[in-house]
């Protein structure tokens, strides 16, 4: 196949364009996956008992006296 000089110039620029486009598409796919994972983790975090309620319940059993952190009454 014999390509003209103009076609070869167009090919060189098209290759660069396709590479950059493919790279952006891969990054976009990765960001979509990260977004899905973030949503999953948010759901997972919501299903767990909230941090405040855990602290509240812990305080019922072992309230911490200011200045005496770490020592249960």
């Amino acid at each position: 196949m014999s390509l003209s000089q103009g076609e070869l110039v167009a090919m060189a620029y098209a290759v660069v364009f396709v590479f950059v486009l493919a790279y952006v598409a891969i990054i976009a796919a990765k960001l979509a996956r990260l977004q899905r994972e973030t949503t999953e983790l948010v759901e997972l975090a919501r299903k767990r008992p909230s941090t405040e309620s855990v602290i509240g319940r812990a305080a019922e059993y072992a309230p911490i006296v200011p200045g005496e952190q770490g020592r249960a009454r």
Partner: protein
Amino acid sequence: MSASSLRSLPGLASLAAAAMGVALVLALVVAPEDADQGISQRIFYIHVPIALTAYFCFGLGAFKALLLLWRGDERYDLESYVAIHQGTIFGALTLITGAIWARASWGVWWTWSSNQLVLFLVLFLFYCAYFMLRYSLEEGPRRARSSAVYALFGVALIPVSFLAIRLADDFIHPTVFTRDGPQMSATMFATFCVCWFAVTFLAYVLYRVELAGKRLDADLRELREVLQ
């Protein structure tokens, strides 16, 4: 990576796209046609900036590797890896656009008689092997250090590859930048500078985007481990 740093990415990406647009118009429309090579010389405006950017990315990867070995901060491992990944992508583009230009100018896609071509191929394959080394080791400080040492060895090939054409009696590959300055008209040189800036800026934005994605991925993995 801070939130403000992430927020600046869409703006930077838009600027990179605009710079590439201007560079394309200058390279394909504004720049005058070369008297010797004709229209095929226009490949120069994309091929050479991409090659220089590949060298820059490999150099940046080696610099980050040096910082990792020097300071021991593991964040440089990811930065070095991303820079070398970028360098490999631009290296592949250099080889492809170079082959197309060779076909247009010399009538062949590749010639083993040009030292610069062969040395660039060696450099490219050397950095391809970087990924094999990296993924053959378990994640951790040992992998980071081994990858860093390998990246530092590779950087020695850059000046050899860059200067090969000047050191050898090779008249196949054109030498545009000599001690007497650039061997082209002012418009051509200005076009080349704009293209170089646009390609380097594009590489910088892609580097930032990839690094942000990798860091986010690592953070999410850590968060998943905490939650599960």
